[in-house]
């Protein structure tokens, strides 16, 4: 079935471990994948797409060996399999130019600096997840407990 998934990409294992703990919030309803490189993430996204599931949100670090976060997210943006996928850049080391690239080329949806606040990260992911589910027309009732209420209200007000 058409389930939404979340993908986290960071080359540092301890950061992935922290994310794993924090994103337990989504555990019951959404599968979260943790990848150590952009290449690994791309492979997993291929598999998810092949199963006709959804890549709803990508949480991605910028400075990584191999492909950089912004480059990876730019590729996702241009990939017609993931037109609505939401992109969150989680980084402490992006230069001014990287940031410009991230907004103009990768069209990222949110930017969070390291170190981050857990509730802020979760809330931002919830908003993005809600937007994705509504844009893709998935049944929001299945995920209603973890969605961002304000985003949901704003949308439901408009549907008759």
């Amino acid at each position: 079935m058409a389930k939404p998934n979340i993908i986290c990409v960071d080359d540092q294992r301890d950061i992935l471990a922290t994310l794993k703990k924090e994103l337990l919030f989504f555990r019951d309803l959404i599968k979260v994948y943790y990848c150590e490189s952009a290449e690994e993430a791309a492979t997993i996204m291929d598999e998810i797409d092949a199963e006709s599931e959804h890549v709803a949100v990508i949480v991605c670090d910028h400075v990584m060996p191999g492909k950089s976060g912004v480059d990876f997210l730019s590729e996702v943006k241009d990939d017609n399999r993931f037109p609505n996928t939401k992109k969150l850049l989680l980084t402490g080391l992006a230069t001014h130019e990287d940031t410009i690239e991230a907004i103009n080329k990768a069209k990222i949806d949110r930017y969070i600096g390291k170190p981050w606040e857990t509730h802020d990260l979760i809330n931002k992911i919830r908003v993005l997840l809600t937007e994705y589910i509504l844009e893709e027309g998935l049944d929001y009732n299945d995920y209603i407990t973890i969605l961002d209420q304000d985003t949901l209200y704003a949308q439901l007000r408009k549907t008759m």
Partner: protein
Amino acid sequence: MNKTGKLYIAIIIPLIVWLIPTDFIPIEGLTIVEHRVIALFILAALFWILEPVPIYSTSILIMVLLLVTVSDHSLIFFKVGVDEPGFGSLIRYQDIMGNFASPIIMLFLGGFFLAMAATKYRLDINLANVLLKPFGNKPKYVLIGIIAITALFSMFMSNTATTAMMLALLVPVLALFKPDDRGKIAFGLAVPFAANVGGIGTIIGTPPNAIGVRYLSGEYAIGFGQWMAFALPFVVIMLAFLWFILLRFYPVETESIDLKIGGKFLKSWKAIVVYCTFAVTLLLWLLDFLHGMNAYIVALIPVAVFSVTTIITKDDLKRISWDVLWLVAGGLALGLALERTGLAESIVESIPFGDFAPMLIVACACLITIIMSNFISNTATANLLLPIMVALGTSIPGLYEIGGLRYIVLTVTFACSLGMAMPISTPPNALSYASGFFKTNDMLKMGIIIGAVGLTFAYFYLYILADVIDVL
């Protein structure tokens, strides 16, 4: 049980019913066509109750199956023996398909257009702002305001859209309440409950009302104004009770509530057209006895006005809840099949209802309805139960004496909207529950009280009024 399991059950049981010989079914003089309709009715019931597929898709499935198996242009295979006695009469395919354009559907289309235009030009939120002001900032009175405005809006907009709008206003304020202030629960429950109850207020308030009206034709027909004349007092009394009971169980500790709603009424010409159309449509609906146009025809006027003025654009059209219209259309087709084949009456006649007191029959009907509507969609409940109620109302002589068709159809229609004890009962319940201001138990407790009181009240209230509706 997973969806696949449910799907199997919902297919296999009707299939068994379909396959058993017609003579085995204990209904006198059952025809082959009627037998098929029974199987399809069971299929619809199981699909709507177990929900292996979305409820609107069940509707279209039913319509297609009716066309393929019991229409006058059905599959050649299903027409073997058509001239033999005991086959029964087939239904004109145009009549089955015609349900997509039933006057009831047009009524809802009109309602959607009005609500959509009101939201687009911020009439709803600005009106809420103006109407909430007189209630000040004492929580007790703000709660009345919230209840009254939610109910008022849900009479013309969908209950879900109303709930979403009111919660968007309330949630930021409730978040400021002290963590242990139980007043949050009162507000959290007030919105969905007022939306559910408020929907009863007009024919377009919620789909079950319109379906109920569809089954009251000819001498029993009810107009828009007539409906409001008896439904509105019911709604107002229920809302007052809701307010009382919420404050009683969940007193608000916070001293003052400050709802912040920004914005001014729009003044562009399009906005003015929206205000005027809204007012004129409402007036025309209420004054149908003066001008002769019925509610269905009036409903199409805003559709024309908003389309011509591009207040509702091509893109907006896509956002209309076609699923709701399909859900209703499929139910109407099912009802038509039960009616045309005479099946509903055959079933009623084969059960010795005559032995029961008519008031008891109505009481049982209401109880079954409210239980079902607590677990499944209100519209699906109406789709399944109202055709049977019509048969009961027309064929039981005892029932005829106590207000007959109108009494049983209206009480059951009201009961469809009164099931609200669980988050899954209605979309407004689910939405409000997700905001996290109350626990399932609070909703269960209050929902049962409101449901029980509302049902009992409707039962006696409509008993008194059923005979005099024409005078209203």
